[in-house]
């Protein structure tokens, strides 16, 4: 069968391959996916015996209704955006880093290590070291994946994913062992970091930190890198057409290392900003699944830095909505995960429309006599 003319009959409609991918649907597909997610969400609330209007309110109105709520939205969106920016570079380079969660944890661990060295007399310059340590921690963790891929051609999807579980164990070892707060009633957590090590707040009335600025600078930097520098171009050619990258002489090793170090560094930065920001100590609850959620953020945002701003806010809504649905409506918190999954699922389905168009079958296929439609 000629691939070019694969036609699938769907009732009276059929999918027809577009001559070129649709620009409109590249952007419309995430919106349609969101609409479908909401519709399925309504059915879901119905089945759970809850008022769907109130349910949707938790997810889409409560997180934006006040200045404080908006602040919380941004607090959660910041790490998602930072991680997703790195992943966008990675995925555009055809490097499948699934382990941003692990790099995020190691960033948090490394940042905590520096923060714990501070005492009452330390100046606030230590914040710089805390942040740099976080970036380095994430890079080192991603670097392992790059090294194994580079040296032994180990699959980076599996390696980076496995590294997440190792990272969780490293974190567990530290907070249950050497770093446990001696005055912490045996809770598995470090002591609360010194005030000097805490990430400065953006405005004193909100929990938003200067991490927001990092994220926004990150958006601009990734945009410039991807679309205006030759290195970023080379990076993406490696993803779009590996043979063309080889023909052009772009190094596939450099692509691999750049992709993993950038995304590891961004995830590590997010970890540092989180642990030395809103959390303020290292606990086993630092990994909140941001590293995995950011994969969805990256795809819903079309791997485009500006798109990621919107998708990270949306994903942040799901996080907050899930918590609210739990506390106010008695729904399970895993609803957050359900919504995340639904969004990715419907997005993948809607992306069919980027490369195919739905056409109404005008003629009843009666082209050849006797050929049944």
């Amino acid at each position, binding site marked *: 069968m000629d691939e070019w003319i694969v036609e699938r009959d769907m009732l009276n409609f059929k999918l027809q*391959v577009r001559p070129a991918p649709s620009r409109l649907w590249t952007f419309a597909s995430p919106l349609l996916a969101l609409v479908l997610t909401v519709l399925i969400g309504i059915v879901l609330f119905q089945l759970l015996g809850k008022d769907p209007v109130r349910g949707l309110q938790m997810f889409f109105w409560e997180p934006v209704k006040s200045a404080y709520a908006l602040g919380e939205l941004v607090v959660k969106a910041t790490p998602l955006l930072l991680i997703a920016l790195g992943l966008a570079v990675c995925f555009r380079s055809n490097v499948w880093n699934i382990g941003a969660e692990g790099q995020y944890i190691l960033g948090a661990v490394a940042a905590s290590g520096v923060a714990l060295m501070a005492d009452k007399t330390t100046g606030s310059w230590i914040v710089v070291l805390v942040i740099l340590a976080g970036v380095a921690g994430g890079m080192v963790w991603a670097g392992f994946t790059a090294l194994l891929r580079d040296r032994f051609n180990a699959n980076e999807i599996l390696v980076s994913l496995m590294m997440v579980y190792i990272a969780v164990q490293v974190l567990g070892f530290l907070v249950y062992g050497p770093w446990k707060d001696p005055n912490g009633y045996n809770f598995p957590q470090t002591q609360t970091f010194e005030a000097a090590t805490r990430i400065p707040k953006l405005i004193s009335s909100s929990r938003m930190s200067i991490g927001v600025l990092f994220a926004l600078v990150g958006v601009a930097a990734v945009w410039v890198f991807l679309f205006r*520098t030759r290195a970023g171009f080379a990076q993406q*050619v490696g993803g779009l*057409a590996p043979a063309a990258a080889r023909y*052009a002489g*772009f190094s596939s090793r450099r692509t691999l290392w750049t992709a993993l170090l950038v995304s590891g560094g961004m995830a590590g930065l997010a970890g540092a900003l989180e642990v030395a920001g809103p959390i303020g100590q290292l606990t086993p609850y630092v990994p909140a699944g941001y590293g995995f959620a950011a994969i969805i953020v990256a795809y819903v945002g079309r791997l485009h830095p500006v798109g990621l701003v919107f998708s990270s806010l949306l994903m942040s809504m799901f996080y907050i909505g899930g918590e609210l649905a739990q506390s106010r409506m008695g729904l399970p918190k895993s609803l957050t995960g359900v919504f995340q999954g639904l969004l990715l699922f419907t997005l993948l389905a809607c992306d069919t429309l980027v490369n195919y168009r739905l056409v109404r079958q005008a003629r009843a296929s009666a*082209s050849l006599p*006797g050929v049944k439609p």
Partner: protein
Amino acid sequence: MDKPRLQLTGITKAYPGVVANSGIALTVMPGQTHAVLGENGAGKSTLMKIIYGSIKPDAGQMVFNGQVAHIRNPKEARALGISMVFQHFNLFDTITVAENVWLGLEKSLTLAQVTQSITAKAAQYGLDIDPSRPVHTLSVGEMQRVEIIRALLTNPQLLILDEPTSVLTPQAVEKLFIVLKQLASEGCSILYISHKLHEIRELCNACTVLRGGKVTGVCNPAEESNASLSRLMIGAEPPKLVHNVRETGEARLTVHNLNLPREDQFGVDLHGIDLQVHAGEVVGIAGVSGNGQRELLYALSGEDCRSPKGSIRMGDEDVYQIHPGGRRERGLHFVPEERLGRGAVPDLSLAHNLLLTRNEAIAYPGFAGGWISLATLNAQAAAIISRFQVKANGPGAVARSLSGGNLQKFIVGREIDAQPKVFIVSQPTWGVDVGAAAQIRGAILALRDAGCAVLVVSEELDELFEVCDRLHVIAHGKLSPSIATANATVEQLGEWMSGLWSATC
């Protein structure tokens, strides 16, 4: 007069953006060898796939042996007595000839029976093949024989052959023609798709010419000249190339005793390749594909940097370990065989595709590889588009929206525009229409006249004879000595393609 074997009327098939077949009529008589002639993109393959049932036409009627036929899939076509040999073989490398054939047949037969019938068919038509050999040990010509035997086992009344000679040496083509003539004499009708005029004139006794999805002529090719057929096919005669004799200059590219083990298991080892290309000459490498062309070109372009020390020199400099970018800086530009995915990134604009090999639009190269100036890039792309008459929707058109010929003009233009010192091009006109092919060949000759050293690797002997000053042949990873084009004959090169040059020189 007999009933026609096959009669098509009003066959129409449209794809989004292009009408591949429009109101096509075609009549094939029993025992007739009927050529379907047309340029790439004229709609030949679509028409054959419609006859073979793998594509459903939008309109039109097909009558086979006087009966209206509604063929829904290739299985029904085979049941009616229609067989097809595709240009690209459908064989599994790891199993034997007999097992491959067995896979496509009714399940009631045993492997032993199939082996027996293969041997019988092979003997009947003089197709020498051992059914117990694994397919990966076969040459391309032998694989085609397997495909033909597979088609013949169904005792077809109509055999469709899609560009069957594009992978064969001239000697193998002669053998194929003997088989086809025997088949026709037994009453089997043959539909022979090709764009090679001399083959059609030798073999076929009827011809339907397609252009732009429409029938532009029906004739007896034996009574036509190449020029008149070509007029029917492209609407004009291709311009004659002027080949000036010119003094050659210094050696720009020297390959000395290049031995290179294959990179992957399906590759070819290169053995002791010796090659020199001088300024102001065009050197051609002929040969059936899969004999080491790909590996040699990877080594020359720098995409494969494993060449031994001293084996590849540009001028006086040993470039054996220099990557493609470095060789490009030294003036070596290369047009690969694969346009989409290697020579160009399908999803990027033409302008961005310039960045693969050109650096003029890069400013401040110190930082992150340099800043891309979009204005410069677009202007540069627009200049190449107009200079090489590329039909495209401007510099922003994505590479995959262009036709094969136009994309090739753009890629060749991109490399020629860089004013190379050494220009290497692989299959310059493969899948390119006649007009564009003539233009590309003209550009190659102009480059040579400007003093560039040019290396052309091609499977088309006609093309090599047209543009080259000297010819080599590559076979089994070894390169023949060179011969001046003026002294070369098709017969001799054909023998060389089988690796037999030590006997003749």
